[in-house]
């Protein structure tokens, strides 16, 4: 009589390469989902409005920098200062 052995339970252990591949697939899926959502939420009219507002803001900055004492970098509302007279750099 032959002895019957119970088959050993099957255990699947992912190899490192398989783990990496699975991670990659999962990340790609998430990225695709995000891209789709962004595309659905994109409103061309809204974007054009934002562009117009940004352009208007730039015009304000340009106007400020055209004044002799206005700032080029700041939109603060401090009192414009009179331009200081020049000073000379000479051999010290």
């Amino acid at each position: 009589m032959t002895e019957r052995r119970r088959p050993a339970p099957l255990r699947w252990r992912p190899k490192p390469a398989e783990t990496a591949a699975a991670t990659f697939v999962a990340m790609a899926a998430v990225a695709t989902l995000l891209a789709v959502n962004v595309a659905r939420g994109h409103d061309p009219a809204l974007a054009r409005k934002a562009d117009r507002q940004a352009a208007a803001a730039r015009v304000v900055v340009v106007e400020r920098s055209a004044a002799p004492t206005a700032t080029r970098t700041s939109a603060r509302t401090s009192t414009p200062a009179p331009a200081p007279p020049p000073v000379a750099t000479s051999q010290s």
Partner: protein
Amino acid sequence: MSRWSEHTFGVMGCTALVRVLDARPGDLEGAAALLAELDAEWSRFRPDGALGRLNTDRRPVVAVPPRLAWAIGRALDAAVRSGGLVDPTLGAPLRRLGYDRTFSELDPAGRAARSPARRARPARPAPDAGWRRVEVDEHLGLVHRPPGLELDLGGIGKGLAADLLVERLGAREHVVVSLGGDVVCGGHRAREIPQAVTVDDPHGGPPLATLELHGGAAATSGVTRRAWRAGGEDLHHLLDPATGRPAHTGLVQVTALAPSGLEAERIAKQALLAGPAAAPAILAAGGVLVADDGTVTHLGPVPARSAA
């Protein structure tokens, strides 16, 4: 309405200008007092001052006021950063060449404002590098150096003094300190208020250029103004550390732009001593070079426009 206040006075052997936007009472008087204190401490021409006493002290370790220890530390930093070209230990050679008192006190008959005609060559660091033998404990205010080694803060001291003053008045809207040719701007609106700075012609002609500072500093080093004649020879105060003699590098004046007066001074002097081939790389933030043949070169990202 904002209002400028300014004070012009003589200190450190030169003319100082302090200009403040929306100054508070005492600002300008305090500025003059601070510069007078620094002059007393840092001048090698004052035997009773802290640096004057240090230079004649025969002990190897000398206690000095903390602010002088700090200034010597910065001068040694400048020596390191310039590879030894901006050497603060050339006090003795300068004295032997006749520059032993404030320049305005030198015999006017002996002064010369000529560019000596010699073969140009870049200056080099001193082979024995006296500045490497100076150690400063800024915390304790102790200076270790071989007795007889004479320190000279020179233009580095002026740049530092201007920086200190601008820092002290930094809470004001705008501050300009001009100290013997070093111009430092500060204040919380310095970036938005342009300060025009004209670059003087080393030969007394009209300004060579006008720069705009939005904070930061401009400094000029040259060989035509602090120049004198002794023993039938034209001399000036920018020495080649390798020889202890006036340097002739092919440049007669360099203006440098930098974030601070100390850095602008160091860069201007280093570029002049390094000569026309190496100077453009040293003037990283821009500046103006004047060669001994009169050629003027504008360098760097800061726009320079002719004043003419």
